[in-house]
């Protein structure tokens, strides 16, 4: 998504969905995963007569509220959307002006869409021609339309193509940068957006700065540490710029070298130590591998308010530490909601028992490891202090450094003021009233300056930049294949000094683009470009000129650095349709993918998986739990709503295997693993697939491990982890696991 138009985040807000005339949901189940968010969808239906369209492998609670529902085969969203585009282009329903002024590379998409006739789409996706036509007509004709997705699109080998395909559909209909439109990706956990923005990630630095030497130098300087020292902390300068292992496949880092395991490239060593803070790693695909990896580590540290079930899963007998981390209500800090709004999470009570907040654990360890001063120095710089105040000084440190997503305006003072006055904001537009007038709730980023309003709708050129307007980001150069990548005439934000497109602003081009003269003093203080300009001069001058510091370019439908320049359909590694695997094979194996040689083609072509494993396996969430369910199963009321692990199975399918409602059943995966769960008859799944919730742990391949919980810490519900049987398969770009389209075999237990 970031590769299409600059940022990979929800473009509008939940409240703004109320402005939509049509809502199409792919691979998301907000009625279960974001119930309060879904209330805005329901209001859109009531207020606006918005048509709610749900495309999902299951008839979910969200589907129960839909006007149109299409039951799609897992992993075929791209053909479905090409099918829609086929009909849209054929009837000329696309927004030609929008495409012409603000989109690059749509011709290739047009060509590909031409191939996806409704008949062909029906064959691949399992959705009838009539339904596809109906959905397309309703969605294309009811603008503005908003497109929603979540993990149902990302957790595929082609997840990163899926998340480009959806924006392309929206761009073609001119649904971007308008109220009631947008690509609204719903984030999972409470601070996925914030933690991602801070890039607790192996391939970037906070604010999505890359791992190049230039980025590291910027951070070393901003953190107040010597770059050489920081570089010296790494094994080598090369490793400093090399992406690390991911959460999805860290286990390979431990197991490499064993027969059949993927090869790794990790500075000559396997992983020996695992340090986990607040991460239910029992919700990661390939649970059996995760267990084996845990068993073979030298050190495991698990800091959580409840027992991290990695500690239960592993057979490791020594050097497994569990540290009682405080909950988020026993410390304070900011959190970023799915719509990029920041809120201040005030501390409610002091940490209970002996628990300590995460930062204290980090600081204590840093002291013992000898880099505490370096670690915390960044908090002292802004005001040249002797000691810091957590978390305010950390918030302000972030505001000082992170320019790429415009966090300059996110000072602790302002975020607190918004939370303190949350009653002064409008539900739909997020506009402030009274003393909060001129600001949007939570200052959705980019919030360019300390007086900026926040940007509730990304890429909206109908508002001035200082009130949250902007074009698409100029991120991919100025010209490609001889075509100008900057936005066309008359597509600049309202009130802009430049009427058309313009490049991202640097010290070099600022005078020319903005038509201003800098003083000698400004010239001395200004940073090299908008991303590293801590002086604030670029942002300030841009606001005055109505210019977005990151430029005004075209969104791109074509990503020339990806293996598929435009999104292409490729069957999952484990597909129930061998005939289609031949037609739409997956990628070649990818060497050194986040340090691991990752299988694609070799796995898919190993055999016809569907013969032995004929049933599609879909995983998802329950309303009473999230993630690995660690916290929720520790609540007696929530655990009581789903006290045991189960499998949703269509009675028709179950009957073929002699499985009755409530019987125990085995589920086998192509990986050679199995789980024993209770069958629950449900018509929400069709007869060719089963559904598993992924929140359980404490059982493993039929064995009850719950005797391993330390005394008094066993949650109120335990069960098999669905991820013991999810299949091998990882996204080609992000390495997100393919948990939403695998195969399995079932048996009565």
């Amino acid at each position, binding site marked *: 998504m970031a590769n299409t138009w600059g940022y990979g985040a929800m473009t509008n807000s939940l409240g703004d969905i109320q402005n939509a005339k049509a809502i199409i949901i792919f691979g998301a189940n907000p*009625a*279960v995963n974001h*119930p*309060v968010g*879904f*209330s805005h969808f*329901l209001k859109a*239906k*009531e*207020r606006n*007569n918005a048509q709610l369209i749900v495309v999902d492998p*299951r*008839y979910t*609670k*969200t*589907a*129960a*509220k839909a006007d149109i*529902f299409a039951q799609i085969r897992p992993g075929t969203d791209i053909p479905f959307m090409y099918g829609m585009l086929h009909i849209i282009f054929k009837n000329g329903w696309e927004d030609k002006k929008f495409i012409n002024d603000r989109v690059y590379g749509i011709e290739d998409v047009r060509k590909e869409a031409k191939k996806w006739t409704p008949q062909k789409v029906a064959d691949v996706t399992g959705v009838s021609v009539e339904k596809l036509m109906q959905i397309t007509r309703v969605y294309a004709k009811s603008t503005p339309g908003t497109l929603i997705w979540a993990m149902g699109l990302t957790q595929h080998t082609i997840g990163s193509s899926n998340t480009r395909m959806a924006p392309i559909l929206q761009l073609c209909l001119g649904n971007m940068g308008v109220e009631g439109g947008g690509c609204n990706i719903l984030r999972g956990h409470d601070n996925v957006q914030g933690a991602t923005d801070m890039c607790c990630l192996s391939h970037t630095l906070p604010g999505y700065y890359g791992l190049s030497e230039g980025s590291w130098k910027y951070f070393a300087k901003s953190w107040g540490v010597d770059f050489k020292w920081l570089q010296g902390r790494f094994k080598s300068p090369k490793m400093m710029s090399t992406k690390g292992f991911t959460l999805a496949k860290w286990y390979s880092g431990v197991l490499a070298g064993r027969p059949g395991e993927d090869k790794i490239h990790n500075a000559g060593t396997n992983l020996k130590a695992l340090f986990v803070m607040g991460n239910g790693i029992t919700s990661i695909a390939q649970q059996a591998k995760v267990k084996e990896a845990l068993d073979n580590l030298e050190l495991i540290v698990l800091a959580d308010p409840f027992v991290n079930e990695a500690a239960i899963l592993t057979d490791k007998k020594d050097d497994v530490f569990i540290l009682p981390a405080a909950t988020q209500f026993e410390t304070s800090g900011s959190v970023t909601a799915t719509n990029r709004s920041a809120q201040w999470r005030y501390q409610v009570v002091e940490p209970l028992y002996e628990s300590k907040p995460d930062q204290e654990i980090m600081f204590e360890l840093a002291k013992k490891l000898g880099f505490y001063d370096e670690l915390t120095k960044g908090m002292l710089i802004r005001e040249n202090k002797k000691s810091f105040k957590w978390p305010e000084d950390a918030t302000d440190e972030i505001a000082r450094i992170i320019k790429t997503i415009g966090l300059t305006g996110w000072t602790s003072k302002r975020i607190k003021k918004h939370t303190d006055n949350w009653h002064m904001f409008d539900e739909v537009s997020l506009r402030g009233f009274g003393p909060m007038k001129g600001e949007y709730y939570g200052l959705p980023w980019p919030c360019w300056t300390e007086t900026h309003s926040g940007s509730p709708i990304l890429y909206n050129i109908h508002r001035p930049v200082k009130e949250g307007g902007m074009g698409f980001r100029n991120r991919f150069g100025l010209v490609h294949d001889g075509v100008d990548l900057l936005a066309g005439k008359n597509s600049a934000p309202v009130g802009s000094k430049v009427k058309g497109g313009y490049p991202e602003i640097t010290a070099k081009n600022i005078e020319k683009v903005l038509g201003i003269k800098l003083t000698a003093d400004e010239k001395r203080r200004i940073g090299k470009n908008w991303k590293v300009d801590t002086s604030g001069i670029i942002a300030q001058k841009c606001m005055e000129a109505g210019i977005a510091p990151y430029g005004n370019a075209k969104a791109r439908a074509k990503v020339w650095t990806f293996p598929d320049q435009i999104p292409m359909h490729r069957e999952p590694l484990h597909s129930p349709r061998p005939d289609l695997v031949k037609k739409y094979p997956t990628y070649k194996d990818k060497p050194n993918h986040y340090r691991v040689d990752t299988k694609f083609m070799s796995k898919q072509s190993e055999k016809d998986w569907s013969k032995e494993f004929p049933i599609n396996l879909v995983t998802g969430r329950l*309303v*009473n739990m999230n993630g690995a369910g660690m916290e929720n199963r520790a609540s*007696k*009321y*929530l655990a*009581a*709503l789903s006290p045991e692990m189960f499998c949703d199975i269509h009675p028709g399918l179950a009957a073929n295997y002699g499985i009755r409602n409530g019987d125990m059943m085995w589920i086998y995966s192509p990986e050679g693993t199995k789980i024993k769960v209770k069958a629950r008859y*449900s*018509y*929400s*799944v069709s007869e060719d697939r089963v559904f598993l919730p992924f929140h359980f742990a404490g059982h493993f391949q039929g064995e009850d491990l719950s005797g391993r919980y330390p005394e008094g810490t066993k949650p109120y519900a335990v069960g098999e982890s669905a991820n013991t049987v999810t299949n091998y398969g990882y996204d080609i770009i992000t390495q997100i696991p393919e948990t939403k389209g695998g195969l399995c075999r079932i048996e009565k237990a």
Partner: protein
Amino acid sequence: MSVNEMARMKFYCDDDRCIDCNGCSVACAEAHELPTGITRRKVITLNEGIEGKEVSTSVACMHCTDAPCEQVCPVDCFYIREDGIVLHDKKTCIGCGYCLYACPFGAPQFPRDGAFGTKGAMDKCTMCAGGPEETNSIEERELYGQNRIAEGKVPMCAAMCSTKALLVGDAQEVSKIYRARIAAKGKGVQSAPYGWSKAYGA
């Protein structure tokens, strides 16, 4: 407006909005610290997974106008407040279960033991209005849970309903809100759903 004209407290669950998130039932259990065996409020989904037919709704004591429970109780433990909230006295209740037979909504709950019904006295939704004990006393809280009505607050289930499907308040206000929603859709008022006449009177 006099009390008689205004107070007739009712619940109503708008099934166009109810998504079976169980926010109401957990909010209730948590607010009153109920034992896990007691479900004062429950969300029911019918025809789960059947396209076009699935419907969810939240059910608790509906505080009926002509409360059948009150009519059958052999020990007269029920009483109906002037505002229409149907309450009972746990100290009088003998746990016979007649009220459960009479109740069209399955509201009465019979715990084995514990704070909300020593000796098996019946427990049910109080519309967050406590019981006959002294208002906001510890005894009242232990037997019946919070008395939010006394604090001037909306009952917990409806206040925390994620989609505002569950409405509570004076019956006229509730129906006004519902009518406004229907009007906003431009489809006119829908026919009364199941249980309407029992729960809301004519």
